């Protein structure tokens, strides 16, 4: 019988054929490897291009780029008008008000969302009645995938007028004019809408992590007489701690990069909210970094403005890259236990 007869119908068999050229596997490996290199190359190109465009702005300002001094809006206006051919380009830019706004909004939202999501995830995984759990889980997933512009729309139509009409008093407005104008678009609105956006994501990630804790560990603890809450808190939550770190980091990266939704509700003024103002601090308008890019994106064609906007993008790029690294490192302990959530 022809030795290869049974192979005639199998086009994929390769090991019985002489190696006249690259085997199938080698070709596949090269092809897929090339694909991987292209994608990695694109990411590298992303970093390189953004940094290259951002360099003039950083070079002119040095570390003062991150500091304060002067009105950031006026600086942006000067940068924009210097784009014509008559003037030398102006790059002076001190982004501290924008950075401060980003920090306050992001950390505020992540802090509130973290605490709430932790308890809500614990509730959802362990203590909710089964019928409620069956409803909650799809709802959390749905809310996590809602496009951010829809949250922004609801916030602009409901939250912002509520804050402007019911929470801000005339006295408060009079006390800060003419430096800034208090309206519903404020720090509070931005923090609330960002919290609502990232909480479902965090809940989903936390719940996944909590579910991957081996039931045996929890049952062992229960068998020793420890009550349900303590068991879940001390054993379950503690085991899944790396997941919490990873989820928080993921949510922080999302919150940092959320441009469109925040630009709709944060007030649109390059002002650093002043905590010394007490309660008014939450009603002050501001504009975080990502929203600044969106606000000035039409003037992208003016070279100095282009370099400045790319500098802001570079800061965002590096922050989220760093957060990705931290998130990856945080998940490692769980991999050691073999519990990949």
């Amino acid at each position, binding site marked *: 019988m022809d030795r290869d007869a049974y192979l005639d119908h199998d086009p994929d068999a390769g090991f019985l054929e002489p190696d006249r050229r690259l085997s199938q596997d080698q070709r596949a490996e090269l092809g897929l490897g090339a694909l991987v290199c292209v994608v990695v190359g694109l990411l590298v190109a992303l970093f390189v291009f953004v940094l290259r465009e951002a360099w003039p702005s950083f070079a002119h300002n040095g570390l003062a780029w991150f500091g304060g001094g002067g009105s950031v809006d006026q600086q942006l206006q000067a940068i*924009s008008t210097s*784009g014509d051919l008559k003037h030398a380009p102006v790059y002076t830019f001190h982004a501290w008000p924008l950075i401060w706004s980003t920090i306050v909004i992001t950390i505020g939202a992540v802090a509130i969302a973290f605490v709430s999501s932790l308890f809500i995830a614990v509730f959802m995984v362990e203590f909710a009645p089964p019928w409620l759990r069956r409803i909650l889980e799809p709802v959390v997933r749905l809310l996590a995938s809602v496009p951010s512009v829809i949250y922004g729309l609801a916030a602009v139509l409901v939250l912002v007028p509520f804050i402007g009409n019911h929470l801000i008093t005339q006295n408060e*407005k009079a006390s800060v004019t003419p430096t800034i104008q208090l309206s519903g678009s404020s720090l509070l609105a931005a923090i609330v809408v960002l919290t609502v956006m990232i909480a479902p994501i965090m809940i989903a990630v936390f719940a996944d992590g909590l579910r991957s804790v081996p039931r045996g560990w929890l049952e062992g603890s229960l068998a020793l007489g420890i009550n349900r809450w303590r068991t879940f808190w001390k054993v379950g939550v503690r085991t899944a701690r790396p997941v919490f770190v990873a989820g928080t980091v993921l949510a922080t990266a999302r919150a940092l990069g959320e441009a469109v939704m925040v630009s709709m509700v944060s007030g649109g003024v390059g002002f650093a909210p002043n905590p010394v103002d007490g309660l008014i601090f939450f009603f002050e308008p501001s504009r975080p970094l990502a929203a600044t890019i969106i606000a000035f994106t039409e*003037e992208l*064609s003016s070279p100095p403005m282009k370099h400045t906007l790319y500098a802001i993008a570079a800061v965002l790029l590096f922050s989220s890259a760093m957060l990705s690294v931290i998130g990856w490192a945080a998940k490692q302990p769980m991999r050691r236990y073999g519990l990949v959530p």
Partner: protein
Amino acid sequence: MIPMMAVPASAGATTLFGSGSSAEQPILNVLFRAYNRLHASIRFNYLPDGGNAGVQDVQAGRRLFAVNTRPPLPSDSGTTYFKLFLDGLCVAVNPSNSLSGLTVAQTKNIFTGVATNWSQVGGSNLTTTIDPVGRNSSAGSYTFFQQAVLGGATQSSNVHPVTSDGLVATAVSKDSSGIGYVGLAHAGKGSGVKALTLNGVSCSQANIKNETYPLFRYIWGVLPTGHASRTVETFFDWVRTSKQAGQIIQRAGAVPAFNKK
């Protein structure tokens, strides 16, 4: 990006890329469409990034033409300005404000932060803090307002800067303590705001045409000096002088300046 309503495509079409004033964008869009109906192969793509930004685009060769709402400045070297039609910048308040008119000096006080409460402004029934709304720095309207009203000073930091005239009108219509400056097209009936008289003269087409209204202005078409596109020049001529364009401009709320009747 503020969406642009460019005109439909057809075979062998040339697209003319322009940019500039967003205050005039509604009028320009109608003009673009009407012109395209006359010359099916010519289409427009207009980016409303503000009059000042538009001029920079033309200087740098990024755009073929621009539309600006302020007269030429020395920094606009390399470009030539053509008068297209007339428009006015109205100062508008919320209809619930009983104020009917201001002087230019009072307007300046409001927008430079000297006057902060409506009770400091005679003629208003309100006693709340003034909420001024204005344009952002890339807007020709802002530069024009700066020159004509503020005397060159910058807008006070409590003026809420928005990116288009439509947004100014929206903000003022929703805030009873609001005040803002918009082009005539955005201050008419149905816009939700009340236009004030300035120095006793009301913001109307007639007063703009006979130049008695203080804040009248020409809308300028901007082309690069020397190597302008013939197609765009022909378009500008059509806008300036043709009867059809004049009707469109009139209907849109601006004032035809040189058009045949």
